[in-house]
């Protein structure tokens, strides 16, 4: 019989007497037996089935008492996540922003209406609106406030408080202007309160209070796509221009603090450029989005 078959039979404990004789006569019989005997030393650790069963049953009994607990914890966790997500999203401030050359009008939860001029960010909280009507403003906006509790417009320069009225707030770099068109507006600037009646305005440039005459119109000019200026530094005119048209100015030999009175329209850049340069005897040249201003 072939050696391989003999060994296999030996391994499977399947040798009959005749096979056993043949197997014993194999030349590597001694080697095989030695290997087989020595391998036995690698026996697995003792395993006591009944002891292990007791251990398993003990664990199972401990676990079953807490079985109901696990799903309950899961449900609670999901609810907690949902609730916090809901809470987070509802208490989040609502933010509206406009880009260069963009205007928009929105309605606040109490039907007050706010028009935003170009490059302006306005945010308010829907959740706490009932308790306090607070909006944060960075830029320029016109408010038509519905009657109700006090209405606050917070800017980095100061706070404007209203009691049902129409007013315009303009807060730009070093520039803070409030014009009241109807009703009464209170302006807190450097913790000092100033009350504005219809037609009054409040203007701060570079930290200095500037007196202005009564406002005759009933709405700010920008709502009619026009920017008006009365004795304002030329730099304010230029930065407002940059906000309405996507352009940047390059100035050559020009006094930016010179006072300017006039206006420009928001819908035609060529006419608008003429209206801000001609009165000051300036010339302009326009390439792409850059406008170079020169003295004549």
């Amino acid at each position, binding site marked *: 019989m072939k050696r*391989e078959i003999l*060994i*296999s039979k030996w*391994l*499977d*404990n*399947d040798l009959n007497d005749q096979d056993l004789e043949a197997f014993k006569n194999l030349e*590597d019989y001694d*080697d*095989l037996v*030695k*290997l*087989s005997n*020595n*391998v*036995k*030393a*690698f*026996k*697995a*650790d003792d*395993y006591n*089935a*009944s002891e*292990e*069963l007791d*251990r*398993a*049953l003990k*664990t*199972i009994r401990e*676990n079953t008492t807490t079985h109901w607990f696990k799903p309950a914890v899961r449900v609670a966790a999901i609810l907690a996540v949902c609730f916090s997500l809901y809470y987070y999203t509802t208490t989040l401030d609502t933010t509206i922003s406009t880009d260069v050359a963009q205007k928009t009008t929105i309605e606040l939860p109490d039907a007050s209406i706010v028009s935003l001029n170009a490059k302006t960010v306005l945010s308010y909280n829907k959740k706490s609106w009932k308790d306090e009507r607070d909006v944060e403003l960075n830029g320029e906006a016109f408010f038509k406030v519905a009657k109700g509790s006090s209405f606050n417009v917070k800017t980095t320069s100061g706070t404007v408080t209203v009691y049902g009225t129409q007013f315009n707030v303009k807060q730009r770099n070093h520039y803070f202007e409030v014009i009241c068109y109807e009703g009464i507006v209170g302006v807190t600037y450097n913790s000092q309160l100033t009350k504005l009646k219809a037609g009054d305005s409040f203007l701060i440039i570079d930290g200095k209070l500037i007196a202005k005459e009564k406002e005759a119109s009933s709405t700010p000019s920008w709502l009619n796509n026009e920017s008006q200026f009365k004795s304002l530094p030329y730099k304010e005119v230029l930065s407002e221009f940059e906000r309405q048209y996507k352009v940047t100015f390059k100035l050559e030999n020009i006094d930016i603090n010179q006072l300017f009175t006039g206006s420009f329209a928001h819908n035609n850049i060529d006419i608008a450029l003429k209206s801000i340069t001609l009165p000051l005897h300036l010339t302009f040249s326009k390439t792409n989005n850059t406008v170079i201003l020169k003295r004549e």
Partner: protein
Amino acid sequence: MGKQLHDTICEESIFSSIFNKHSKDLHNFLYYKFGELLNPKDKVQEAFIKLWQNCSKISPDKAKSFLFTTANNLMLNEIAHQKVVLKHQQTKPKTYTNENPEFLMQEDEYMQKLQKALSNLTEAQRVAFLMNRIEGKRFKEIAELLNISTKAVEKRIYGALEKLRKDIKEL
């Protein structure tokens, strides 16, 4: 239907009988495959607890393969396939009383070679071979445990034997 309902593993007596029937084989299988470092006893416990937790979904005749697969996976989760080195009992039954030092040294050397050769086997070879040689299981029993054919078991065991002998000679 009624009979099947009765025959669930959720019954503690049935669970216990399954435990008594398979736990030792499962333990030895894990031991020979992965060594003792990874606590084969604990993995057996875990596998049976998992069986209990899923008792309503598993019929008793599927329990064995569930246990072997689960325990195997539990082990695989823990190891990054490091080499398995089985330890051998230090207190080897002494058959000769008048062993001379040289013979003892040779014996010791042989055991070390054997240990190394065993760790060089594939997991499948080692499990089948040691179950056969140490636990005295016949090919058919091993085939049933591992869910493979008798022929495959024979091939593994014979292959393991040949490889061991070759390794021991070379080492």
